């Protein structure tokens, strides 16, 4: 985000303000790179702001990968802890978002491989033993603001889409979620997934093809 000229001149004249002088405006108007610099200088507020910016995107990506709320929270927390404890090694040449998504998706894919969860349960955690645990580990798809009919319809539609995405290979799933939920450009997705740009395009193209097949019956209804 661009800073106002007055703000820029203040910063250029005084250098970076120390952590205790940072106010809400500084943090909200700061870029990710600036926040990382503030955090490196020991500002807890900067850590909190980075957490606020990325907790939902990271958690959503991981949750849709592993489809288990408890596991997803653990993995998302692990992602932030790794990122925050390694801020000194962060290279500002790359986007902060690419770095954090890379760690999150690697953790999620590693977990899926370790646990052999490629063919994951669509109706809740495998580890759930009681009906309450199953229900709490299912992906909730409605926002809660709809009428009962709309709620049911939205829930069914959401479940159909989530189910179709869950059936994709983990690599396809990561690519399609980063593209369509996070709106990341192909180049950044390639950076996050550490694969060539052409491979990302192939992943997304094939994922779209599979989704179209699985969701073909929804076409007339929508």
């Amino acid at each position: 985000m661009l800073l106002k000229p007055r703000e820029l001149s203040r910063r250029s004249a005084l250098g970076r303000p120390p952590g205790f002088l940072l106010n809400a405006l500084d943090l909200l108007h700061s870029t990710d790179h600036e926040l990382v610099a503030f955090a490196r200088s020991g500002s807890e507020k900067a850590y909190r702001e980075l957490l606020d910016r990325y907790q939902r995107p990271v958690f959503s990506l991981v949750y849709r990968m592993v489809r288990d709320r408890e596991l997803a929270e653990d993995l998302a927390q692990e992602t932030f802890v790794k990122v925050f404890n390694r801020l000194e090694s962060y290279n500002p040449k790359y986007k902060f978002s690419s770095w954090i998504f890379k760690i999150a998706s690697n953790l999620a894919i590693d977990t899926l491989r370790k646990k052999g969860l490629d063919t994951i349960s669509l109706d809740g955690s495998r580890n759930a033993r009681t009906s309450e645990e199953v229900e709490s580990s299912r992906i909730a798809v409605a926002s809660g603001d709809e009428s009962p009919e709309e709620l049911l319809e939205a829930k069914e539609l959401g479940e159909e889409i989530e189910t179709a995405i869950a059936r994709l290979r983990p690599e396809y799933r990561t690519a399609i979620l980063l593209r369509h939920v996070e709106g990341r450009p192909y180049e950044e997705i390639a950076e996050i997934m550490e694969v060539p740009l052409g491979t990302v395009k192939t992943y997304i193209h094939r994922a779209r093809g599979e989704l179209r097949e699985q969701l073909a019956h929804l076409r007339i209804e929508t």
Partner: protein
Amino acid sequence: MPATSAHLTAETLEQLAEGSLPPAAATGAHTHLEACSCCASELDAIQCLFTLLGKLTRFAPSASFGDGVMARVQLAQESRVLALLRRLLPTTRRGWAMISVAVTAPAMPLIALVLWLLTLPLISPAAVIQWGLLQTQSAAQTAFAWLIDGALGSGLFGWAATSYTTLQTIPSSALGGGIAFLAIAIPLSGWGLVRLTRTPVGRVSHAN
């Protein structure tokens, strides 16, 4: 592009649906789509898929998520003094007991002496308090006298008289201007300080 001989590729249709096809190619593709119902139908399907995927929202983690993360994070560059104190402070009850003994042991003889004095018949608590008050009063008088002597010796009063005479020579308009400047500058600088040190209030999430 002939409408029937060469259909648009899936990549072209996806780029068209995303709006990332270069303008010239997009114009050609639209011309083709007008004449080719097959490609138009394919584009519809892709756009429909994009609409469905657009319905996906982000999920929120539990309310304790952030605190859970921060509890496990080693904040960068912790103050050296704090870090040293953290290392020095005991972590067990035994450690605290040892620290307490180490701090109070040197004072024990003094405390014992005071207690012994208080047991003597001539030294009552009231007499000790009265003696302390007299000593304090005497010390205050000595300090006040020393300050007055020092002020007279350093020529402070002479300096004040000179300053007053100098101020009288300054034109009243310049003096008024100076006072007005200070009256504006002081509150402004105070406001600036308050703004700089203000604590952030509320949180604006960038997610969703």
